């Protein structure tokens, strides 16, 4: 546990040692605020539905930015050799990196807190969807991060890692969309709907926190972190 925290601290600090973190946070806030306020006053509804509806798409591009350098840079610089010859297990490194990326994403998400505050001042929103939306956003973000880490682990090129992460996240996002559900055989429909990252986000976003949705996200995260672990471990056997 101690080791995981040390890796976590090192990773988290490294975000802020380059301007990437600030650029990320600023662009994230500008985009979310603009997209939200663009329609907020026209619709005149005291809810964040609009914001949470866009979040899976915004995260789709931003989560890979956070994760792309996690492994790719270690491999490119060769520091992975230092890291892996320290008394650490690969699992501890994977978890430390995962926690750092998720924490960073959650920090960015917390900074959008001005949106619900505005809504609360101007109206009287239903607290269920609001809290549900944020819990869902954290889970969705964590799943994206797990996918992104896996993508970063298979290459030493940050751009490749970024694009692969987007492709995988995108595939898992649209597989639950209606367009896909209508075009696949009905037998597969429920499977696809279950696999969709967005489907579960929507159901949590309604304010109902269902253990099945939580279980889905947890298993997605565990699955991709395990794949990440295996790709990193397999390098030792090459």
């Amino acid at each position, binding site marked *: 546990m101690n080791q995981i925290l040390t*890796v976590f601290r090192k990773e988290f600090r490294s975000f802020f040692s380059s301007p990437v973190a600030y650029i990320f946070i600023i662009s994230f806030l500008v985009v979310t605020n603009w997209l939200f306020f663009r329609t907020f006053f026209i619709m005149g509804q005291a809810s964040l539905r609009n914001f949470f509806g866009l979040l899976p798409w915004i995260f789709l591009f931003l989560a890979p930015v956070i994760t792309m350098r996690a492994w790719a840079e270690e491999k490119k*610089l*060769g*520091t992975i*050799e230092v890291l892996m*010859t320290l008394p*650490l297990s690969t699992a501890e490194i994977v978890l430390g990196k995962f926690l750092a990326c998720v924490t960073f994403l959650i920090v960015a998400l917390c900074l959008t807190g001005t949106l619900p505050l505005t809504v609360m001042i101007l109206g009287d929103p239903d607290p269920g969807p609001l809290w549900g939306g944020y819990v869902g956003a954290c889970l969705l973000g964590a799943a994206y991060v797990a996918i992104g880490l896996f993508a970063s682990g298979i290459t030493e090129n940050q751009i490749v890692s970024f694009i692969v992460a987007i492709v995988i996240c995108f595939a898992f996002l649209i597989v639950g969309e209606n367009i896909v559900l209508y075009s696949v055989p009905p037998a597969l429909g429920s499977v696809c709907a279950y696999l969709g990252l967005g489907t579960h986000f929507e159901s949590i976003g309604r304010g109902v926190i269902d253990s099945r949705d939580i279980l889905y996200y947890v298993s997605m995260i565990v699955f991709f972190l395990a794949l990440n672990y295996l790709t990193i471990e397999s390098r030792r*056997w090459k």
Partner: protein
Amino acid sequence: MIEVERLSKSYGTTKAVQDISFTIAQGEVVGFLGPNGAGKSTTMRMLTCYLCPDSGTARIAGFDITQQPREVKKRIGYLPENNPLYMDMGVVEYLRFIAAIRNLPSDSVKPNIQRVIEVCGLEAVVAKDIGELSKGYRQRLGLAQALLHDPDVLILDEPTIGLDPHQIIEIRNLIKNIGRHKTVILSSHILPEVSATCDRVLIINRGVIVGSGTPAELAALSRGKQTILVTVKGPHAEVAAGLRTLTSVVDVVPLETEDGYGRFELICSADAPSDMAEQVFFLVSRSGWSLSELYRKTVNLEDVFLDLTTREET
């Protein structure tokens, strides 16, 4: 301290290391010598648990590298090839990070960092980021990182590569000092380095150990020839004939002549007495010639190395 048994590793079809076995006692400084791509780094990477061997085992301080990697890693200080570092970290921040992962007790973190900064001569750069450091300082920081937890075993992969001669001497002295108390393995493809710092040398070529011994023993391995260079003023043919009469001279090769001086290379047989040069001197003075140069060429590691590493290929 280190026992290696039939360690092998292949990358695809290339056999990087084949059936390497050796043991290293506590307090020994051992050098891996070999051309680039000989398998030195691969061997070190297996010992430090970075790579898993295909077959064979190794134990460091009694711990198996595949069964108890964490225990092994705790006891090793490792400087990887090309000394990778986190460029965006500060010098002290990096050492603190290593200390935290190494689980140094909190009251010994500061004195230990202080110690390695002193030993490695990093005082001038403590406030800097690693990215700003010169190559020499980066190398020292890599060493400091390896020494931080006062490990029993130090594994250094090409510790002086890319340094200027002055820095090389400094790092060598540092390694020598450390080697008085610790077990050290270092690799190099530069011969003088190994002969200057190591108690024992393992010559590795194409994944196998082709020679092993102290630098002096290895030198003796090389066909045992002795060569003497001599420049003499006197009638050429006579001098050459005179030199040939000496016992255990196998061949006399006339090299060049200048102002009546003739230069000869005397190749002596393996059992030549150690006072061959003296005999040449007495011969020259007896015959009334004058001597301007007399030089015994000792066989150095270079010759052994070239000899051992090219033997298989030819």
